[in-house]
């Protein structure tokens, strides 16, 4: 009982804001209004075609059959109606053509804008959403709207129009009979509304159970080795069966409610037909209604019932589409909190860059500070390594320096310019970060390296690999630069992916390089090769490396040791290890233990 109430509450909530969503959506895509009046006018004409037949039947019977057969009248009526039908059919075509062209164009625009917007959001925003759900915003959510518009939307428009036009014609014939029809349908409408709410809840349950089922199937597929190794196929099968049956039961419940909806419409139609005949005959006897009009009414009632029957289903789809639209709009409404200053922004001064953290404090929204009042100077062309335990705040340095995030207090400056004032195109071309997982796109090695510099020739790329000491590795690939790396680069090993990511950063030729070292285990030989490449990439540039391997720290000009959000030690490696009780010395001892 309480569940039903909760569902009802939720659907009331959504109906309340449906108009707001539509308004927001229209404001965002004003092109949706293009020619809307014309399209609606065409739809109205199209609708006239639906009542043309009952009207023709009425005129034919009243003027050509009852009280003397007159073939000429019938032929003329039929000829005129046929002409009307040709015109309305043409209008139907034009209406749909306009509707689909405008809506698909507008929605493709929304899709693209949402895509760009997701990229413009700060890293924090991107990571606070599950990645799959961000993808849904520009795929399934928009698909839901276009699919609805192509099917349910047209049905909704046509049926609403049909309801209006049918009612108008009925009123023209007899207000008494119209009243009879409306009275017969009134309870059906009330019940249908109730059912539609329950149906929304039922479909919600189906979606939820489908999610559970997908989770269970995914687990049985991804966990196949564990299931086999522990001989727990029986247990897994039981879990799957529970999820499969759970979904089936929910689906069956939904269809029962949906059938009740159409049954109610059907019964209302029977009631209306019986009522029309009974009242109509009395009116006919009084000569206030002709035989033709009464017959036409029987036709009109069947036209009237269709929209009511379809309404429960289509309205439900409409709610889904609106919900999808709302989710897309919600993403677009999030304003990027780390924004490009754009035209007003400044360029970074030419030449080597130095970096300065001036009294920087940083806290994640709603969290305690991870960096406390940090001040640090990194001279131009020096190589600095930041080390510390997991959770010490060391990766925050990299994110602040590349302006993936802004400091909560204080400022980060590059050659004296506050990062917040630097235009993104200047910043991104001068400061490059190599992230931990060295993500590769599903393209060739060459295309991945060329990512930031599409203008580079193959010769230049080959030369770059040579400069990094990777010429033999490149030669060893099946098709050299044209070797495909596979989805997420998975055709290459973890170490190889990192090599490509480093080459990509190298050809971008930044003045400040920020490295977030990978933690994933590669064999020691690969690791040493990575280290050598790293040395080549960083030569002659200002470099800040978040070091997980202390061999990086050993090679750096200066090591910054971070502990609980503060810099606790700094200096060259050799000096820092001398103090055997220091944080760094302990880290180094543990590192040695792991590698020897």
């Amino acid at each position, binding site marked *: 009982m309480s569940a039903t109430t909760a569902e009802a509450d939720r659907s009331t909530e959504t109906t309340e804001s449906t108009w707001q969503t539509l308004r927001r959506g229209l404001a965002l895509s004003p092109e949706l209004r293009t020619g809307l009046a014309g399209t609606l006018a065409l739809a109205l004409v199209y609708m006239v*075609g639906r009542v043309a037949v009952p009207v023709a039947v009425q005129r*034919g*019977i009243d003027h050509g*059959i009852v009280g003397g057969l007159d*073939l000429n009248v*019938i032929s003329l009526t039929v000829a005129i109606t046929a002409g009307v*039908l040709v015109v309305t*059919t043409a209008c*139907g*075509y034009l209406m*749909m*053509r306009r509707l*689909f*062209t405008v809506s698909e164009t507008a929605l*493709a625009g929304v899709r693209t804008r949402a*895509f760009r917007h997701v990229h413009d959001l700060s*890293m924090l925003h991107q990571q606070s959403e599950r*990645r799959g759900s961000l993808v849904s915003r520009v*795929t399934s959510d928009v698909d839901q709207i276009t699919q609805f518009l192509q099917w349910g939307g047209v049905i909704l428009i046509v049926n609403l129009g049909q309801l209006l036009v049918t009612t108008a014609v009925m009123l023209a014939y007899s207000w008494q009979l119209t009243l009879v029809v409306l009275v017969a349908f009134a309870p059906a409408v009330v019940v249908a509304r109730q059912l539609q709410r329950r149906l929304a809840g039922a479909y919600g349950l189906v979606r939820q159970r489908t999610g559970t089922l997908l*989770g269970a*199937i995914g687990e049985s597929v*991804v*966990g*196949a*080795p564990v299931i*086999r*190794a*522990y001989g*727990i196929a029986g247990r897994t099968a039981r879990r799957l069966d529970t999820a499969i049956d759970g979904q*089936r039961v929910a689906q*069956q419940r939904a*269809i029962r409610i949906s*059938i009740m909806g*159409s049954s109610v419409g059907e*019964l209302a139609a029977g009631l209306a*037909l019986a009522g029309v*005949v009974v009242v*109509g*005959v009395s009116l006919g006897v009084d*000569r206030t209604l002709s*035989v033709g009009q009464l*017959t036409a009414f029987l*036709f009109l009632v*069947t036209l009237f019932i269709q929209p009511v029957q379809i309404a429960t289903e289509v309205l439900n789809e409409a709610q889904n589409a609106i919900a999808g639209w709302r989710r897309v709009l919600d993403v677009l409404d999030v304003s990027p909190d780390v924004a490009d200053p754009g035209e007003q922004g400044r360029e970074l001064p030419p030449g080597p860059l130095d970096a300065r953290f001036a009294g920087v404090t940083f806290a994640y929204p709603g969290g305690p500070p991870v960096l406390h009042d940090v001040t640090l100077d990194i001279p131009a062309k020096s190589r600095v390594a930041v080390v510390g335990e997991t959770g010490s705040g060391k990766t925050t340095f990299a994110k602040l320096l590349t302006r993936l995030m802004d400091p909560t207090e204080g400022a980060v400056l590059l050659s004296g310019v506050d990062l917040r004032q630097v235009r993104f195109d200047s910043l991104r071309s001068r400061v490059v970060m190599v*992230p931990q997982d060295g993500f590769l*796109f599903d393209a060739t090695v060459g295309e991945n390296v060329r*990512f*930031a510099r599409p203008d580079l020739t193959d010769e230049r790329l080959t030369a770059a690999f040579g400069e990094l000491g990777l010429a033999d590795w490149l030669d060893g690939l099946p098709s050299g630069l044209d070797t495909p790396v596979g*989805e997420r680069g998975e055709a290459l090993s973890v*170490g190889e992916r990192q090599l490509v*990511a480093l080459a990509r950063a190298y050809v971008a030729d930044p003045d400040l390089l920020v490295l977030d070292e990978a933690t994933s*285990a590669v064999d*020691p030989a690969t690791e*040493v090769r990575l280290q050598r490449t790293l040395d080549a990439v960083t030569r002659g540039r200002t470099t800040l490396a978040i070091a997980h391997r202390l*061999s990086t720290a*050993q090679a750096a000009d200066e090591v910054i040791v971070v502990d609980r959000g503060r810099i606790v030690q700094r200096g060259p490696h050799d000096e820092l290890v001398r103090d055997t009780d220091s944080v760094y010395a302990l880290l180094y001892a*543990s590192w040695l*233990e*792991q590698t*020897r």
Partner: protein
Amino acid sequence: MLGRAIREQPRIFAVAVSGSVLFGLLVIASAYVAGGVVGKVVVPAVERGEVARGTLALAAAALLGISVLRVVGIFGRRLGAGYMQYRLQAAYRRRVTRRYLELPLAWHHRNSTGTLLSNANSDVEAAWYPIAPLPFAVGTLVMLVGAVASLFVTDWALALVGLAVFPALFALNVVYSRRMAPRQARAQRLRAEVSGIAHESFDGALVVKTMGREAQETARFAARAGELRDALISVGRLRGVFDPMLETLPSLGTLAVLVVGAIRLRQGAITVTELVSVAFLFTVLAFPVRAIGWVLAELPRSVAGWDRVRRVLDATGEMPYGTRTLDPATRTPATLAFHDVHFAYEPAEAHLPGAQVLGEVTFTVPAGKTVALVGPTGSGKSTIASLAVRLVDPGAGRVTLDGVDVRELTAASLAGTVALVAQVPFVFDDTVRANIALDRAGIGDDEVWAALRLAEADGFVAALPDGLDTMVGERGTSLSGGQRQRLTLARALAGRPRLLVLDDATSAVDPRVEAAILAGLRAPADGGGPASILVVAYRRATIALADEVIYVEQGRVVARGAHTELLATVPGYADLVTAYEQAEQEREQKQTYDEVTPLASGLEVER
């Protein structure tokens, strides 16, 4: 497909078809009742100027009665069809997922996770989706035949109109579906591509952002989104052409009935009742005939889905378990032996040779000993680990436990004897307790805690909000990599295996903890049985704990012996395990050289 559906759910199919036929016949009946009411009740009443109450009540009752019966038909048809569809879907999901559990891992490796997910979900759904409207189609067919028959009974001239209109409507529908199918397929393909770009681009968001490539990525996405838009517009235009035509055709039929009917009326061949009945019939038949078109449009999708489902159901290569058991009373460590084992991954396409992964692998893990498996990335270490616990079977050669070929052991005996802890920890979306016990007999809370202690995981589990009842996994508390690794380790230990296989499973664990774990396994403090251990390792600290080292390169055992021995005699081994030291020495030499030259004063040359 239809035959299969009937065979599997005969009763429900019968209900659905009967309901559908009942509905179809009632639709025809309703037309004749409506005609009868007009001709026999309304016209006489109006002509005579008085109401015959009895007949009027009968007419009203007939109209209402038909509605009630139609509701019965609707219930039978839709409930039957829906239940049938959902039951078939559930039954096939069960069968497909059973196959997943039965088929060997080699088969799993050949299919991506995404494919297997959609086989069990959307493909099954697509295969049975058109089943729901099929009884309706059968009912509609009966209805059409009945309608034409009733037309012939009424009047041959009107029947001819029907024979012209209904087949035309059907033909138009078929043409529509045929022309729509490729457009829909194109739109579907483009949808997948747009989704693929979004997935990849958002996955690489950090790279896109830090290299400032947002505009280029958006252009790439917009180009494909534009193609999708054009495809959808083309779908919409086709709809715009056919939908109104399909709508208008029955109306034109009704108009033809008016003209032809009037002529026949003048000839005295039919009555007003019959004329109105037939006109009404054309109106009510229009919708069901159109609905058949929707079924036809879905059929190609269904066939494609069914083909993919069949591929799973017909896949072969199960790994049947044997019938032998190892003595359950023995709590002594097991002996593992590889005898000339070869292994190749099955090729992606049948005519290609498979990739040879292992060849002539022979070694033994003696009872109670710890053996370290060392080798460069891709040398086949993980494959050896998988073979040892029979996740895969060798192409040639034998793997034995206490002298018994693992292929001859029952599933329970095998699972009770060996345990594998994989490189990448896998945690079920369940409680900590369920993740460790896995419903295995004899593992209660005490055993779970003991295993957690041994894996040095008791501390963080005790600190979790709900202890053993804390939900972990995809939607639960997020654990760190090291914590997940220790949970899976505890899972393996809880079963008290006699052979433990660790596939680089302690990389995220502190070396000291690792040493403690390994020591605890070899000589359990609580009096439980000790275990033999096969451990894949890189760390020298781990290797040092082993009684013997097996060094593999490119799928072959290159050397075996004690660590110090291999270090002295096998250059490849020495290179691998001492890579760090070598790199450091090089650097030190280089640094010394670099620093000495500019600083001729020698002040800093203290090393």
